[in-house]
């Protein structure tokens, strides 16, 4: 639908949060917890972190939780009874105050999970999400959304977007039918936009550092450039921090937890950075060294996904770089690849 543009007083945010909470008990927002900023269910406006760049973890956990039970079963006298968890009743969930790079991250996740055959768990959870994002008015040295097709005011994936503008006011963009229904809850607080607002002027400045098409071409061409991958990943210690905080990493592991009588099948986050990820039962590991795993990480995001799913598997949020124990700054590595 055509976006509806409104203006709201920043001071009204607390009232909006109250109204949302009244209608949607599962209201998630960024909450400061010591060094972390986490997306959590809030009770009111005062719970929301005041000054945050983005949440430590991405929002993917709301549609793709780190532990998802996909099957229950019981074993009785040789009889196996299976039961799939009910996916029709996931509660409606509002994500309030997430960033544009998180909202647009669902593009990749949806392409992966709902590609050929929709994944009922992802699909059902995602359908219940109402996404109210806040455009970024600041960025840090890790941000590079503008280099991968995004921008600090990108509305893709959001139902409503707020942008702080002058005079303690916020620009409100109502972007979808879902967003319109939610905005009706606080329509009395919205006023019409008398004159056009130059949204761009209020956004963070995130310079474009590389041409993503060059990255796509060059990663695809560089599969056999062993020294490139070894040099880039020499300091990589092979943990999964990057993949687990990433808004688009979707690889998972299936594990059964059971006793003699019953069990559950779980879908768990996994990471291509782990040596176990590709270890065969025979003992052979086709990605036997870390450089091959690092290559896989970049090839998947910048070669296989663009080719097969027509999306780039990166939103430029920089979480992987911030979380990396050894400062593997992906922006630098992508720039190096673009300049090959």
């Amino acid at each position, binding site marked *: 639908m055509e976006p509806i543009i409104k203006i709201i007083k920043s001071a009204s945010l607390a009232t909006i949060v109250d109204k949302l909470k009244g209608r949607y008990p599962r209201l998630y927002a960024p909450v400061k917890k010591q060094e972390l900023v986490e997306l959590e269910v809030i009770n009111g406006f005062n719970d929301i972190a005041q000054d945050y760049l983005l949440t430590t973890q991405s929002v993917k956990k709301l549609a793709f939780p780190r532990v998802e039970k996909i099957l229950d079963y019981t074993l009785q006298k040789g009889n196996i009874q299976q039961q799939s968890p009910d996916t029709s009743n996931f509660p409606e969930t509002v994500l309030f105050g997430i960033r544009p790079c998180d909202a647009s991250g669902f593009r990749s996740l949806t392409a992966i999970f709902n590609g050929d055959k929709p994944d009922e768990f992802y699909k059902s959870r995602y359908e219940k999400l109402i996404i109210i994002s806040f455009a970024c008015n600041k960025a840090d040295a890790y941000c590079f959304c503008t280099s991968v097709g995004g921008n600090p005011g990108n509305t893709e994936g959001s139902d409503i977007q707020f942008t702080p503008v002058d005079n303690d006011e916020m620009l409100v963009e109502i972007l979808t039918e879902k967003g319109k229904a939610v905005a009706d809850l606080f329509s009395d607080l919205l006023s019409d936009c008398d004159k056009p607002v130059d949204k761009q002027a209020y956004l963070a400045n995130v310079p474009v550092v590389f041409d993503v098409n060059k990255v796509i071409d060059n990663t695809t061409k560089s599969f056999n450039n062993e020294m490139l991958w070894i040099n880039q990943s020499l300091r990589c210690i092979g943990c*999964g921090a990057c*993949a687990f905080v990433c808004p688009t990493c979707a690889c998972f592991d299936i594990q059964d937890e059971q006793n003699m009588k019953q069990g559950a099948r779980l879908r768990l986050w996994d990471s291509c950075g782990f040596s176990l990820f590709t270890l065969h039962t025979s003992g052979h590991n086709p990605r036997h060294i870390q450089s091959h795993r690092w290559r896989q990480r970049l090839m998947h995001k910048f070669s296989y996904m663009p080719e097969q799913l027509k999306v780039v598997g990166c939103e430029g949020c920089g979480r992987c770089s911030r979380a990396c124990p050894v400062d593997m700054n992906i922006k630098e590595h992508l720039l190096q690849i673009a300049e090959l």
Partner: protein
Amino acid sequence: MSDILINKVKQLLSDKAIDIFIGHGEGTGGRIRPIFVRTPEDAEQLIFNENCKQSWANYLLKPEVKAAGKIGMMATKHALRAMMQLASEFQIKDNEVLALYWDNNELKSSADFKEIEAYLASQNHDILPHEQEMIDKLNAMTTQERWDFWQKEYEKCIKCYACRSACPMCYCHHCAAEGNQPQWIPVASHQLGNMDWHLMRAMHLSGRCINCGACAKVCPMHIPLNLLTYNLITPIQQEFGAIAGMKHDATYALSTFKTEDKENFIL
């Protein structure tokens, strides 16, 4: 300090005394990152200042690093202790790794275990006061309070295994967390899976932890994991008279029988 280090590494690389040097470099926004130097020109990127406290000993066993040839390393006190502990576990050999370290503002270099041991013996290895304070606080708690404290911390864990990857002593090719015949530790990052993982890791590091604190420093969820392993240092020291990483030929306290071992645990 950086200049002295750079000149030394340049010389070592030109003399072919080493093929690759692991040191501290400038990272993003003032962070410190490990850098790998193979040519005298690249040595210019090395830095050393009061923020360079990280140990890079966990790279000594990485296949791509080993494949580069003879390794030199800027070694903090913890990195040297990690080397001694790795040696005692037969993971590195005498004269295999050239360690550069600061001794009273003098840059020394040695690959000789005896020399490194002598230097370590002259240093203080106590854990830092604020860390000890935290451990004392935990030990003063009731069992329930301590349980609650750790459950809240484990809840944050996303099982990225950065703690394991950063730990110089977590080098097992086949980690117990990855065994599935039988499955000792639940793979899932749920309450039980997280707790089992951290307790198992702490037990495997009892008497082996060289208190570098890397596990806690790298945790993206800021869990103070070092307190788990640090808490096991004092009991081992009291019962067996040793802390890890001081001797290249030390025997592991928990798997070695000595006639003078205390037997007061036998009822």
